[in-house]
């Protein structure tokens, strides 16, 4: 037996991840968006160390500093490069702190919704029959309402607070994940490797979570990215409407809402800078998500 394929040394292990990374960075826009997203995340994480003011600490906020235009000097001495808002908070500091809240609320609610939606979707796909019908009709019902309406209703019932906002966002979004996972899992469970896994005597749970789930990850990652972006903007929407996070710990949406009343009097910066930060965040996440979809979708492969 001297089959060439049998005797040649194994190639350097080309993991699916390496291949994927190489493909991802082929696109300049996506690479740029990813870099921007990373910068935003780093800025948000490092906020307490790189900002001149802690906007949550009322002793550091001076009312005499309120509504200063960009570049003015604060009473405490430092320069407010992005100006200050109605209560005298340095906007640069407030935006970075706001980003922290917006990002963490978006990511946490996105992850919880992902885990819940994924599990429910997998169960639906694998169980089939009546269970599947019941679950999917609930999903349909949920998706027939706009996510913002569902979230708004829930927050109105639950009240304010970070935990309640996260809960509302999870409830508003799990159905997207459930639907995506079920669609993929339905295709995967018909594949022969599932039959083969059954022939090995593996348990149902093992087949679903160990064999089918990893094969459903690609679309899940894409939906996860896009949904996280929409969770962030949904949170901003709720906060802007005044039903989201409290004034004392402003997220980007709260900052935008605070500045909104000054727009017509020419003090644009109070709303515009937080708005730009929100825009940059959501757009970069969406660009990354879009490109992930292109890379991970075998049908779009060249």
């Amino acid at each position, binding site marked *: *037996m001297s*089959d060439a*394929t*049998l*005797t040649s*040394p*194994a*190639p350097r*292990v*080309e*993991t*699916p991840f390496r291949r994927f990374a190489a493909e991802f960075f082929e696109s300049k826009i996506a690479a740029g968006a990813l870099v921007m997203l990373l910068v935003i995340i780093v800025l948000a994480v490092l906020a307490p160390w790189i900002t001149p003011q802690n906007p949550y600490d009322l002793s550091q906020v001076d009312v005499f500093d309120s509504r200063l235009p960009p570049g003015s000097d604060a009473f405490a001495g430092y320069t407010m490069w992005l100006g200050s808002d109605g209560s005298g908070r340095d906007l640069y500091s407030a935006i970075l702190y706001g980003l922290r809240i917006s990002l963490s609320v978006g990511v946490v609610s996105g992850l919880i919704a992902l885990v819940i939606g994924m599990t429910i979707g997998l169960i639906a796909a694998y169980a089939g029959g009546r269970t599947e019908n019941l679950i999917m009709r609930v999903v349909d019902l949920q998706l027939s309402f706009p996510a913002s309406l569902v979230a708004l209703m829930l927050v109105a019932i639950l009240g304010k607070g970070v935990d309640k906002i996260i809960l509302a966002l999870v409830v508003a979004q799990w159905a997207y994940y459930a639907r995506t996972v079920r669609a993929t899992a339905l295709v995967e469970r018909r*594949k*022969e*490797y599932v*039959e*083969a*896994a*059954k*022939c*090995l*005597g*593996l*348990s149902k749970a*093992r087949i679903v979570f*160990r*064999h089918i789930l*990893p*094969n459903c*990850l690609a679309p899940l990652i894409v939906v996860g990215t896009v949904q996280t972006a929409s969770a962030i903007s949904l949170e901003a929407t709720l906060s802007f409407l005044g039903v989201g996070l409290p004034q004392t710990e402003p997220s980007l949406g709260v900052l935008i809402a605070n500045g909104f009343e000054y727009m017509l009097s020419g003090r644009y910066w109070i709303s515009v800078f937080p708005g730009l930060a929100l825009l940059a965040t959501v757009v970069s996440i969406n660009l990354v998500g879009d490109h992930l979809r292109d890379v991970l979708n075998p049908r779009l492969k060249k």
Partner: protein
Amino acid sequence: MTATLEVDGLCTHFFTHAGIVKAVDGVSFSVGKGEIMGLVGESGSGKSITGFSILGLIDPPGRIVSGAIRFQGENIANALDQRLQKLRGNRIAMIFQDPMMTLNPVLRIDTQMIEAILAHEKVDRRTAWERSREALGLVGIPSPEERLHAYPHQLSGGMRQRVAIAIAFLNKPDLIIADEPTTALDVTIQAQIIYEAQKLTRQTGTSMIWISHDLAVVAGLADRIAVMYAGRIVEQGMTDDVIDRPLHPYTIGLLGSVPSANKRGARLFQIEGMAPNMLALPPGCAFAPRCFAATPACSQEPAVQDVAGRQLRCFNPQVQEALS
């Protein structure tokens, strides 16, 4: 001698909207310890469904309607799922047709092999890993350590089928059902795979059901052959007997349509017509409309009869040499 597997009057039917498909209809055979049985037939003759029935992997709308499947004396037809799950991969293993599809693309080979061991035995991962490596060595895979770390897409088709065979033999099963395991491979690899499978069954005393549409493959491998047509075994006997002196007109047709060197230039024998629609089988012998030896008696259903040490379902066995 108690047979490893005895299938007795197995009927697996599919209840579709268009009607009842009798995919397997009264199939009986037995496989002794260490014996290789070839199950031969055209596409749709019910050979794969027979295999899946044994493993209890028939999904609705199909089910085993009647008959017994005695595995080492225990009837496992319509047994509880927990019982079957203990047998699958452990006492009865399966090898599939397309090695490109049967290994999970996102899991490494070692993950999949270790998992197969741990599903049935309480051993630590290290031991399971060692055994996986040994198993890969047994099926003729060079540098098994490296292959264990590979993903399925990094292996060639022949290599993947070797891995699949190694997985099937991992838990030293008593019976392996191989569903056309060489069909998707090219001829040289086919021969190697058959060689490995045969060697392993001889070494381990495992019985095997080798499902194939290729008589030539089965002839060189199996101890006994069962020929299936439209959900029934029409002829069954020792390989040499069946190949050298086929009795059923269908077997004769199958053998005659294999091209070979000593028939060069001559017209190949052809079975007239097409495989029947399983929803509307002809009454009586399903093969009668295509049979060269059909008589009016064939509108009745032929019973299984013993002719010259063989089980046969035919009114007009071609005892005299029909092919020459």
